């Protein structure tokens, strides 16, 4: 038995080693960092323990801007993308032909490089001295004045970010919802049909409750994902997000850590811990709500 135990631990050794060094230790460490005041990365010394880092971060206008951006992004993209994904998935599951083709096309954004395709969105929306960009040309067809989506008003920039985020997250949601819808047995629909149930009632009383566990899973992961938005913003607005007023919480963490304004792992840690706390709270709230509404 002892020999067997030893062998098992040997098999597990690489995993334990890697996870220990790059996941468990950093997890503990980030909390320590966040409470160490005046940490100096060169000399690796600090003055004392306290909550100064948190209060610094919470009073930093850049962080507040990032927090605001992230919240707006979350509040817009999570409902919009979930609703859109539901609409598309229901459509997908009710058509007789071409289902696979559509599914394949809809999944494409999942396998693309966020940074690379973000550049395409950038040029679609960009207004330069040569051209107003394709989107503005389209808008002017409807009689709207061209807007500088990337360097212009805050709302316009936020709109582009939201559109790109929805475009990026939708494939995953469509995939999950389509398979959830496919797993609802045909007999339920036949039973409802025999009773002459109107389409809308079938949807609200049978389909929605049956896929509700997956729907809540998507909403939770959607919240978590949107709170961690970063690379889509970089793709659209470049690495200097603070200047563009488009930074996100994760972006703030990285900026604190490294780059022109970097070198403050303590502030970065505090911001990361705050982000973690927000995500955790939202997840718990979501779970509590879902327990009330997911019935079986």
């Amino acid at each position, binding site marked *: 038995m002892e020999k067997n135990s030893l062998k098992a631990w040997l098999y597990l050794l690489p995993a334990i080693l890697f996870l220990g060094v790059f996941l468990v230790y950093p997890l503990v460490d980030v909390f320590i960092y966040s409470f160490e005041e005046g940490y100096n990365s060169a000399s690796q010394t600090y003055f004392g323990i306290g909550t100064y880092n948190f209060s610094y971060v919470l009073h930093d206008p850049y962080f507040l801007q990032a927090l605001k951006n992230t919240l707006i992004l979350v509040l817009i993209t999570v409902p919009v993308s979930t609703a859109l994904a539901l609409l598309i998935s229901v459509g997908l599951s009710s058509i007789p032909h071409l289902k696979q083709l559509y599914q394949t096309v809809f999944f494409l954004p999942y396998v693309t490089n966020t940074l690379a395709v973000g550049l395409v969105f950038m040029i679609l929306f960009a207004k330069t001295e040569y051209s107003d960009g394709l989107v503005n040309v389209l808008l002017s067809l409807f009689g709207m004045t061209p807007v500088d989506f990337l360097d212009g008003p805050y709302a316009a920039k936020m709109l582009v970010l939201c559109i790109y985020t929805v475009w990026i997250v939708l494939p995953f949601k469509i995939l999950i919802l389509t398979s959830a819808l496919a797993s609802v*047995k045909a*007999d339920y629909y*036949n039973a409802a049909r*025999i009773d*002459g149930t109107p389409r809308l009632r079938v949807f609200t*009383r049978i389909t929605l409750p049956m896929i509700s566990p997956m729907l809540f899973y998507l909403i939770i992961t959607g919240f978590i994902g949107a709170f961690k938005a970063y690379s889509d913003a970089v793709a659209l607005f470049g690495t200097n997000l603070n200047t563009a007023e488009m930074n996100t919480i994760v972006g703030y963490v990285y900026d604190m850590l490294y780059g022109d304004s970097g070198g403050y792992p303590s502030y970065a840690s505090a911001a990361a811990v705050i982000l973690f706390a927000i995500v955790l709270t939202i997840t718990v709230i979501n779970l509590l709500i879902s327990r009330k509404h997911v019935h079986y």
Partner: protein
Amino acid sequence: MKVVLDHVTKAFPNRNKKLKQDVIAVSDFTYEIPDGSLIGLLGPSGCGKSTTLNLISGLLTPTSGRILFGDEDVTDFSPEHRGIGLVFQNYALYPHMTVAENIMFPLGNLRGKDKMSRAEMRRKAEEIAALVQIEAYMDRKPSELSGGQQQRVAIARALVKMPRVLLLDEPLSNLDARLRLQTREEIHRIQRQTGITTIFVTHDQEEAMSISDAIVVMRDGVVQQIGAPQQVYNDPCNLFVAKFLGTPPINVFDGSVSDGALYLGEDRVLDVPCVPDGTYYVGIRPEGFEIRADGPMHAALSAIEVMGRDVSVVAAHPACTTDTLRAIIDADETVGLHANEIRFSLKPSKVCLFDRRTEIRVRTDK
């Protein structure tokens, strides 16, 4: 409500797309089901019995032929306009709704002058729940019920709108043996009490025989025989029906007729004056044997299985198409079961002759 099937045919496109020919699931089905009767559609899997049920329900539409409820042609009606109730094989109870909500669900679809208040719906649901005796479980979820209870809820949900016709798809197949017996009685009782024309599908001949007013035996989409269970059992129209009905199954022999006498191998077992000479399949029901010391049929005794009321005699006969034949005799008649050889005489009414090529019944009487 009588249900009329008038030359109903259903063809499906072939699954194997290279073959252009359609698969005929139901072929030229004609039958008038009397009002208030309980009908069993019976046959092996793939015989078209479920397709027939779905055609009556309206989930499928026939390729040709008409379906009438009473005098009304419902062929082109979609399911919700036919006024039917359907109980699914796996019940299809909505798992997120309670028993009461499941039963009330169909009522919630009523619009216009039929629209019911919640209290009315509840009262109606309770009424039906009492009928199927599940009123004690109204606030449970389907997952908290046993298979038999779920079955009752499914029946209640199908009945709550007072359908003109009740359809049940393999109603007992998901239940264990004891519950099956109980539930089939229950279905019988509910049907009698409501008087709703009821059609159910099963592959279990015992199930169909025990409660049906009439059974329809199907094979490969073609109706083989329709009639009261006992009549079909006693008087099968072909070898398939004879073999399909009855447990233990009918014993089949290679026999021949010459000069008005039926021979099984060397044994001259019966006089059949009206049958022309030739070779036949001969089916003998297990209860068609009688042990007689001077019986004309000689068989080698293999085993005796005593089953309380009856004794099952297993014996070998050279003309038998299977290794052994099985005879059921009264437990009191076990005299003379010691020798290796056993002799039977046959009850003429339990012996059926079938044409060797067409397998159609050959009448032994005039």
